């Protein structure tokens, strides 16, 4: 039923051949003139594997590494503001790793890895505010399962990253505390809601980070910040300890500066959890073990892989430069041996309104617990309704209030069928459409966002336009599928080049396939370096 005919548009694209296996830079000037650096930058290495090697060979100590990152944080954080809290025990924990190395004790796969953790993921003894005033100074008594697993692997929680309040937003401007800047252009947003986690990895303030993705909150900021963002299948990672926004859509995801890092981090946090009834009992494959080094790749390493380019994501309303980048990525995949065809997801445009109804409905319920009674902000009041009203009025930001109101409305008697129930039907349809498309194709690709990073303030007073920016990602959450976003090119803005990410969507629990394709894509994409200017000089030397 789906068209598997290659569209002429793709074939007629100018410079198509010249783009292959090169940086998919779309600016005309960039295409005709050589890249600023005369030497071709190497593909991104896995920071996790590199530091592991260095630690084991005693070239460097964990304390040295931590000191370097803390120093970089000191330089960059005043401009970026990606962290809400920085752990005061980073060096102490690094010392512990060094002690283990000195004693030849066994090291976990993430030993010494500095991880930024989105502030809606609970960390014992560290504030976990979900970017909200209503949880100001709230310190949970337990670690989220994902955090606990990571720590068991030797990871060091570097700090808590900024986010839109409760994950509701696409710019991180919705944080009750601070606005995070995009490391590529400080006048722009890092995307959201996991903007802090994306910016921190992009600016190499930490090595990898955890985010959460309810409607694209890992993938869109990954695209805006030029890093790898991985949204796992719903149920792959335990949600225990993730402050709920929309329970049926929320997943914890990973950011890395390379596909390998995102895969290694995912492996560490995945698996069934008896504390999350929706977590899957499926076996977790070792995602990183299948990675092939660039030098050992065949000329057509992805021969036979069927790739579907989602037609609805490269139509009107999407930045032409973004479309160019994605078509470039598609042709890069073809160069690698894939068969790329356009596929249509007829329900695609329905996903956005359905998402906003479902997510708001669930959030209106999930956020009821912030009532000022047991924890968080409590207003002194002499009667119960004022206690509730004033605690919540003062604790929640305007976007959160709007979504609570929308969700309450959608679930109200008399409206339930028209909104919530209808949205659930759309969700079934979306799932069905994806299932059909993924029967015909191994993976689907699309942009991760219809544009590159917005300017700070650009969408602030235009929530509908901000919501529309989620069109590329929300359908994947409705279907519960895994998706990988990795940088594939740039668009030019007036002030700076801004990264663009391609989204690869797989069938449920096929992260392994996505990571394999993503890794080969990344290793063979030449001429691009996704290190932002703010730290480029430091990292070059």
């Amino acid at each position, binding site marked *: 039923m789906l068209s598997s005919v290659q569209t002429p548009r793709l074939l007629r694209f100018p410079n198509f051949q010249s783009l292959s296996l090169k940086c998919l830079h779309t600016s005309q000037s960039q295409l005709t003139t050589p890249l600023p650096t005369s030497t071709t930058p190497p593909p991104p290495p896995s920071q996790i594997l590199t530091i592991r090697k260095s630690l084991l060979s005693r070239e460097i100590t964990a304390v040295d590494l931590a000191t370097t990152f803390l120093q970089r944080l000191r330089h960059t954080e005043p401009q970026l503001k990606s962290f809400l809290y920085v752990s005061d025990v980073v060096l102490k924990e690094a010392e512990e790793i060094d002690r283990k190395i000195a004693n030849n004790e066994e090291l976990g796969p993430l030993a010494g890895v500095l991880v930024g953790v989105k502030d809606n993921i609970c960390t014992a003894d560290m504030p*976990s505010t979900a970017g909200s005033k209503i949880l100001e100074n709230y310190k949970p008594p337990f670690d989220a399962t994902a955090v606990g697993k990571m720590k068991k692997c030797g990871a060091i929680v570097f700090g808590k990253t900024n986010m839109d309040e409760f994950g509701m937003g696409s710019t991180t401007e919705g944080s009750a505390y601070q606005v995070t800047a995009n490391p590529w252009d400080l006048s722009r947003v890092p995307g959201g809601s996991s903007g802090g986690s994306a910016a921190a990895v992009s600016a190499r303030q930490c090595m990898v980070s955890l985010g959460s993705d309810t409607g694209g909150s890992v993938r869109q900021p990954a695209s805006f910040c030029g890093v790898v963002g991985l949204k796992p299948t719903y149920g792959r990672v335990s*949600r*225990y300890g993730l402050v709920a926004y929309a329970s049926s859509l929320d997943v914890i995801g990973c950011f890395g500066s390379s596909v390998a890092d995102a895969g290694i981090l995912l492996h560490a946090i995945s698996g069934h959890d008896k504390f999350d009834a929706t977590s899957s009992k499926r076996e977790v494959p070792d995602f990183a073990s299948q990675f092939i080094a660039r030098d050992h790749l065949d000329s057509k390493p992805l021969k036979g892989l069927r790739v579907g380019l989602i037609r609805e994501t490269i139509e009107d309303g999407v930045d032409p430069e973004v479309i160019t980048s994605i078509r470039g990525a598609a042709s890069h995949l073809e160069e690698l041996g894939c068969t790329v065809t356009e596929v249509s997801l007829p329900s695609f445009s329905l996903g956005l309104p359905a998402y906003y109804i479902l997510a708001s409905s669930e959030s209106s319920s999930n956020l009821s617990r912030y009532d000022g*009674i047991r924890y968080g902000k409590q207003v002194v009041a002499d009667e119960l309704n004022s206690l509730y009203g004033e605690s919540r009025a003062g604790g929640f930001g305007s976007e959160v209030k709007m979504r609570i109101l929308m969700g309450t409305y959608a679930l*109200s008697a008399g409206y339930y069928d028209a909104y919530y129930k209808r949205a659930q039907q759309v969700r079934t349809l979306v799932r069905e459409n994806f299932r059909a498309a993924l029967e015909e194709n191994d993976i689907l690709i699309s942009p991760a966002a219809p544009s590159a990073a917005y300017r700070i303030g650009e969408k602030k007073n235009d929530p509908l336009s901000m919501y529309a920016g989620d069109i590329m990602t929300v359908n994947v959450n409705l279907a519960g599928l895994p998706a990988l976003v990795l940088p594939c090119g740039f668009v030019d803005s007036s002030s700076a080049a801004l990264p663009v990410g391609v989204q690869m969507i797989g069938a449920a629990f096929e992260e392994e396939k996505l990571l394999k394709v993503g890794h080969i894509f990344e290793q063979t994409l030449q001429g691009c370096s996704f290190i932002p200017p703010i730290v480029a000089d430091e990292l070059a030397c």
Partner: protein
Amino acid sequence: MALTFLRGIQLNPSMLYPSSYFARKHGVLFCCMRSAQTQTATQEKEQPKLKISTQNQSKTVDKILKDYEAVIGIETHVQLSTLTKAFCSCPYNYGSPPNTSVCPVCMGLPGALPVLNSKVIECAVRVGLALNCKLSLSSKFDRKQYFYPDLPKGYQISQFDIPIASGGYLDVDLPVEFGGGHRKFGVTRVHMEEDAGKLLHTDGGSYSQVDLNRAGVPLLEIVSEPDMRTGIEAAEYAAELQRLVRYLGVSNGNMQEGSLRCDVNISVRPIGQLEFGTKVEIKNLNSFSSVSRAIDYEISRQVLLHSQGQVDQIVQETRLWEEGAQKTVTMRKKEGLADYRYFPEPDLPGVTLTEEYVDNIRKSLPEVPEAKRRRYENMGLSMQDVLFLANDMNIAEFFDATIAAGADVKLAANWIMGDIAAYMKNEKVTINEIKLTPQELGELIASIKDGTISGKIGKEILFEVMAKGGTVKGLIKEKDLVQIVDTAEIEKLVDKVIADNPMQLEQYRGGKTKLQGFFAGQVMKESKGKANPKLLNKILLEKLNATS
């Protein structure tokens, strides 16, 4: 952490009743009552003078009552006695110090998730089957949303449109002293949900505190059809439910501890009218007798309003039973239906039952009280006996074991309902606490039946075994209590007594035959109670009447 959940709510306890606010026409809150008592007084003032003084008006009320019919339905909450709560691993023990049995899940901390205790499903299926319900092989949990300080998440995990069991019934045998009779009351639905915490109000009333020990404890909500017509029927329905959950081992059914809570819905209509009257809900019913009395009070109240042409004064509301005053008072008036904004609980997967699972539970079900009563009835016991024996699971077990030990049914029933029950009542012990075993009772009955001991001696032995333990055989032997059935020996005793009482003998022979009892008593005394009474009387008569 302890500090976070012991925070007081800075408010007046009366504010905790949403009912304390009375909205005027323009929605302006104008009145906050100081306490439930004052509120009551005000409510009563607002209403037309209505006094149901049972002394003065009982006759007229009784007369009017005949023209009306009450329609009663009961919503019962049964607390399941699972080892841990419904969605976390906290234990629950009634009466633990506040907030000592809590965790992130039942406190509703950010990021905590519920995971269903599978025992809850097992209990629900047991109760559903025992109530003759149709089970939903595929059901789910939903969120019922409302704000209250004892509800940590701001929603209760419950079941809405697909309850785990529905469309059943409960058989009840009404007590003989209330006229007896068998009733079949419909059960609309049985669903699983979690309990809320408790609010502790200070005496001074300046603040309240929240105890979350009970939050997340599993409950079954059992909703009856509006099939009951009197307070007794309703109370007996509730009592039968209590028996059932105890028989099934799913709950201790203790009303005082709140393990079994009944909310009653009641309306009244003139006999012959098809549509229901306006229904009123009654809460705070802590015993079966309060269920019965509250309903009878409420029927009288409503019927009186009907008969006085003040039907419009019966409004949809929740009323509180006041045990002290023996009346119901307004707790809160419902302004339209509450909107709980139910939607499917996304944190929990659907509940799927396999036929095999259900069959296994069906096979493991014990004999339910109704089946037991029918069985006892078929044994030839009277309904009075049947109800006494079957109503208490432990007594029924004791009785069944006694029968199994070979005892005569009627004799076993008599012993249990007579001397054993009296002993238990006097000593304030349960049948499990007395030292007599069913086997020994069987032995005792057999020993009397075969003439080894007399009934009188049997009684003595019974009390001794109940208090101190030991075996019937052992005691008979130890105390040399074997009945004297030897004719020669009894004759000897009779001769002695006659010889010792010549005056009485003369009187007897002179026509005062009543003295036979005196002689019998003396002989029995002489035999230390061991003489076989039948034999004794036979020989005594022969000797007394012998013409010398």
